């Protein structure tokens, strides 16, 4: 798998975090798109059809929870793995949110990359 083929959408309203992940991901050969609120996140998700979405929960306009729900309910986007990255302490709530995994901030870059790899591999297998 070539990371360069993969597009990751980062949805976070806190700019330093958006920047951090944009940097880490591009540094690891991913293409990166970013959105600073839930609405923009949904727009870009439908438009760009990224391979994976990193989604904050506490977002302006549309919450990460709602965005996640909408994406998972839509035929066009429901296959896209979503990693919820939140500062709320809810690591086991993934089934509730319909996302693949929940990571808690602060999240070390290595842990993030490992989860991305796992999610992408698993999505790849499902496709086959």
């Amino acid at each position, binding site marked *: 798998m070539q990371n360069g083929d993969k597009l990751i959408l980062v949805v976070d309203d806190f700019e330093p975090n958006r920047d951090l992940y944009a940097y880490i991901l591009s540094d690891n050969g991913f293409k990166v798109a970013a959105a600073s609120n839930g609405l923009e996140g949904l727009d870009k998700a439908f438009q760009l059809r990224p391979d994976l979405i990193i989604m904050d929960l506490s977002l302006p306009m549309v919450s990460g929870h709602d965005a996640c729900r909408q994406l998972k309910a839509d035929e066009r986007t429901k296959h896209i793995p979503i990693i919820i990255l939140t*500062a709320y302490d809810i690591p086991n709530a993934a089934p509730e949110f319909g996302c693949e995994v929940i990571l808690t901030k602060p999240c070390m870059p290595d842990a993030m990359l490992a989860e991305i790899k796992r999610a992408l591999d698993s999505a790849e297998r499902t496709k086959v």
Partner: protein
Amino acid sequence: MIDEATLELTEGIVEAGAKAEPDSSEAEAFFSKDVTQSKFTNLGGWGGAMKQPVNILLVDDQPGKLLSYEAILESLGENIIRANSGKQALALLLRHEIAVVLMDVCMPELDGFDLAAMIRSHPRFQKTAILLVSGVLVEDLDRLKGYDSGALDYISVPIIPGLLRAKVAVFADLYRKTKALEDVNLELERRVAERTAEAESARREAELANQLKDEFLAMLSHELRTPLNAISGWAHMLLNGGLDANTQHKAVETINRNAMLQARLISDLLDVSRIVSGRLRLDLRLINLPLVVQAAIDAIRPEAAAKRIELDAVIQDIDPIAGDATRLQQVVSNLLSNAIKFTPADGHVHVRLEKVGEQVELEVKDDGPGMPAEFLPHIFERFRQGDSSTTRMHQGLGLGLAIVRRLVQMHGGSVEAMNRQDKSGAIFKATLPISASLLQTPVDPAKSPAALASVPAGLETEGSLKTTRVLVVDDEPDAREMVAALLEQRGADVMVADSVRQALALFERERPHLLVADIEMPGEDGYSLIRKIRNLPLGRGGRTPAIALTAYASTPDRMRLLDAGFNVHLPKPVQPAELIEVLTKLTQSGKHI
């Protein structure tokens, strides 16, 4: 009493009354005043320490007998009510609270037995005593019938006035006492109900408070973790190496900015805690408000620039006013950071400081979405944000405006929030009085601890600490090493200790020129250290200048520290430049003591 004893209840007594027979004091009293009318005004109003008259209902179809009963009972001081039939008696019973009914057994339509039974069957009259007067010879059988129907006692004809009076008096008293007891019971029940309701509402409030606290803690950890993520993430990247110079700079700058953000959150939190417990104190003196406002604006410019927000200010020259410069700068910066937070990128924030009459108006106007009308009344409440769900528009704990309001109020001013009329956006306006009356005690700048701790303007920042021996005491290695590294960078000769014991040993042996000490340390703390040093004689370093470097940042903490013997109090986190400045100043003043 003997003379009254055998008065017969016949027309005779009526005649006696009519003639105002001198022997009958009752009859005399009857004619001397209108008893029934005057006492009627006392109906109702029971209880109390004084004997409250009760109502005595007299029932007889013969007016003459009614008058004679009344004449006999008048001296009891109770209220007398008359009825000339059983029906009228019932009507009166329903209208008034009757303690004793005295009635004739023989009456047309409704006789005494029937009436007694009716009264007794009504739950409202359970306490009412019924006395039956029988004109004919009362047989035991009749008595039994009377008791069965609910009468409490019999009065036989011929009536003995003293006996009648005594019996009525006993029952009236009994009624009064029962009534008083009942009142006490009712009052007790009412109080119990009241207390129960209070306890219930306290419980509900406590539950709500607890829930709010939980929500607040969740939000607090969220707000602390969010910048922590950027800090630890970038720190990790720096550690891994391989970042180009630009990215390295950006990483460090981001870490710094987010650490500041966290520090601000924490100090806001502490301020709110001080507000809640009433421990927030102002350090009042005459201040130059325009400079304070300008300082706040300058400090926040980078934040505005990051969102390309234009920040313009119209600041009028204003004579010095009484105020706490630090706290007022906090007011301005909270209002500004609120405005910047809500203003979209490329927007505008306007600041206006103007003297209006005997007041100063500070206005901060933004380009943001404004505030929902329903939220406006709560905008200055603690822990409030326009939206507390996860769809939150903005970061933060919602503490800033609560702090603003409190600080402005403490300055004798007020603050209001409104939406702009010309376009979308919010206006916050703080009004402060100009009068110097707030300055209750003139502050002697030379004696003020704040003055001691503050650094004179114009002091060179690039101060050199060459050949200065500094002892740094902190149990926390990172903090200790940071200070040591900083001082060594400036040429100081640094020695470190991680406990008071080690510090004292080093102090005695090395005789440092300066002491920088943390306060909270396991075992002996910084207070103990400075007291021991101050107890040393001059020749052994007892006057060595000392800086308390501590996370205890409040004014009372500072007072205590200075009292204990520290020369300067610097709250953590300390800006390196500030620490160097203070040390340089102390070196110049105290090196050769």
